[in-house]
């Protein structure tokens, strides 16, 4: 970290081989309704006022810089440090343990084949994003370290890569997860782009390796959900001499495919980006369960290997009146399915849909008035997951209070509307995505869920709850924010 910061200082000299860029987002959002400074739960109602602080420092060092008029080899070291904390803006207070070296790779061009760029290290590649939601559906290798090659011929951009995602997915329970993938993007003239991509990951299966994918045999899904696997086993096998079943090797794989269609430069339509992504999630690793002084790791590969996500997104950017009126309109649909779970609401069994509309009017070239409205609906496909009132029931079955019930709250749907408005300083000129931007915003949210924002309220209905409960469906907030790419 120190070395990187030192090199960053070197980058200040214009002719040095070091180049520095980055991204920052910082805000003050004192929440006078008991929240923690975010208007809602997440980006489904737009990223604006729903995201926390963030900082990224991106660093390139040209070990051998490319020459303007010669196809000679060149090579660059690239690093990125990023994290979601800023001093005084969040509970992390900017501590460096909130940051990580998320990218490190070395690229080399014009080696062996002219026009091909080789990359070794972290491999992440993205084909754009839904800026209103801050979601990148057309991304590959976000978890992969390995080697890739990028070839660019005229309007064709092809990336092919292979590597290991074991540390990203398993962390300190490392097991190799071999990952291969590719993206292809073709420009169809000035007005359209088409892209395809995907990756597939397979986890190594080695008998005896304690972190390989295993299954604990004969585990009932409901017992696993409730943390009662050992209890249930001992009910059937009460003699302690009966050994808890040894895990058996399983298979774990994951991957995704995406498609991208972009078109624009048609009248006021600057660009429209459409994405579709189908993903199979990687199975979970083991989790520990304890009952009556007996603790075992319950291996659940086969209980978590049918999770899929379909996501469709679209964002259109209009220059309705050039240099004056800019409009961005986003749509998002997501469908999460878990073929193993048909009894408990979870993030893996739901669908959601959302629309966000942002209008920004330039009062002067550097001052704009911003308005945004967003509506979102989230529906659990395995029963209730939302408490609508301060005295809503917790555990229940079909909405009827049941201390053994796996449902939560009294509704299976959360509907949220947000409105935001305020002044924006854009020193570099007008535009919705002109940055840096300094914003003074007011935001309001209405949701059927009680206190639908991160908070520290006590929700217990216990008579000894000293703090009491609160019911709020409207949420108001003022924000002073700054955001910049540099």
């Amino acid at each position, binding site marked *: 970290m120190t070395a990187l910061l030192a090199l960053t200082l070197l980058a200040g000299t*214009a*002719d040095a081989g070091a*180049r520095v*860029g*980055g*991204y920052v987002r910082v805000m003050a959002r004192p929440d006078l309704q008991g929240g923690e400074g975010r208007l809602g739960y997440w980006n489904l109602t737009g990223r604006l006022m729903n995201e926390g602080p*963030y900082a*990224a420092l*991106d660093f*390139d060092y040209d070990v051998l*810089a*490319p*020459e*303007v*008029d*010669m*196809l000679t080899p*060149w090579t660059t070291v*690239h690093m*990125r440090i990023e994290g979601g904390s800023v001093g005084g803006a969040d509970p992390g207070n900017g501590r460096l343990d909130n940051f990580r070296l998320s*990218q490190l790779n070395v690229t080399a*061009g014009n080696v062996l084949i002219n*026009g091909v*760029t080789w990359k070794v290290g972290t491999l*992440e*590649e*993205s*084909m*754009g*994003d839904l*800026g209103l939601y*801050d979601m*990148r559906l057309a991304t590959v290798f976000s978890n992969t370290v390995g080697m890739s090659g990028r070839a*660019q011929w005229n309007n064709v*951009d092809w990336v092919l890569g292979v590597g290991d995602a074991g540390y990203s997915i398993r962390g300190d329970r490392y097991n190799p997860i071999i990952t291969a993938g590719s993206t292809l*993007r073709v*420009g169809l003239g000035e007005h359209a*782009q088409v892209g395809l991509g995907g990756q597939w990951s397979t986890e190594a299966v080695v008998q005896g390796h304690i972190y390989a994918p295993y299954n604990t045999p004969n585990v009932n899904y409901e017992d696993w959900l409730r943390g009662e696997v050992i209890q249930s086993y001992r009910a059937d096998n009460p003699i302690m001499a009966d050994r808890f079943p040894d895990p058996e090797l399983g298979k774990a794989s994951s991957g995704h495919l995406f498609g991208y269609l*972009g078109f624009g430069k048609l009248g006021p339509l600057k*660009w429209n*980006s459409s994405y579709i992504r189908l993903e199979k999630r990687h199975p979970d690793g083991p989790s520990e369960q304890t009952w009556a002084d007996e603790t075992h790791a319950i291996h659940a590969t086969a209980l978590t290997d049918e999770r899929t996500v379909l996501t469709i997104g679209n964002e259109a*950017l209009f220059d309705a009146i050039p240099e004056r009126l800019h409009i961005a309109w986003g749509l998002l649909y997501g469908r999460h399915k878990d073929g193993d779970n048909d009894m408990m609401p979870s993030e893996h069994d739901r669908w959601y849909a959302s629309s966000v509309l942002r209008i920004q009017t330039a*009062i*002067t*070239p*550097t*001052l704009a*008035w911003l308005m945004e409205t967003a509506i979102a609906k989230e529906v659990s496909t395995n029963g209730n997951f939302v408490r609508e009132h301060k005295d809503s029931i917790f555990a229940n079955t079909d909405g009827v209070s049941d201390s053994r019930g796996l449902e939560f709250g009294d509704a299976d749907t959360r509907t949220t509307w947000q409105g935001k408005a305020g*002044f924006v300083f854009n020193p*570099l*000129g007008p535009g919705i*995505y002109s*940055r840096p931007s300094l914003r003074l915003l007011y935001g309001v949210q209405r949701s059927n869920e009680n206190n639908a924002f991160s908070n520290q309220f006590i929700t217990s209905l216990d008579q000894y709850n000293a703090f009491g409960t609160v019911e709020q469906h409207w949420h108001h907030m003022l924000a002073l924010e700054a955001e910049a*790419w*540099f």
Partner: protein
Amino acid sequence: MVLISMMMACLHANRPPTNLPAAPISTVVTLAAPESAEAIPAPSSVRSAINSALTAQGLNIIEGAQAADIQALGTPSGRIAAVLLASEGKLSVLVDASARPRTEISGRYPWQIDLTITVAEEGRNPLTDTVRIPVSLSYIHEGEGDALAAAAMRIARRTTLLVERFRKDS
């Protein structure tokens, strides 16, 4: 709200006008992409922005050298000599730009624009400035020309400043 908007509109900061006399000036902008070793036509919007900014400072834009002819030359001194020859020794500006992409960050595509701006006039030593401008683009298909166009206003401001300094010494 309308009143607030009107009040804010009055707050727009403007650059003070120069007291220097009117003069003819020619401008040339070149663009290169080092990683692909290509010389690319610079978008016309960049030269237009520069010309507008210079015109606002009381300068008269005249025809000068063609960018393609200048890009074919090998050395900075050869380039500026050719620019002066084409403008018959009158005040001239040459902006040599190169654009390089950087890694996508938080959904944007950063580019690095390296500029060498030279202001010259026959009989005087040229004034040269190098500057690096970061640009972030929204879409992956946008290239060197888009990156340079996104920096047009900043390039125009920098160029105008340099021309003004050069003229103050004349």
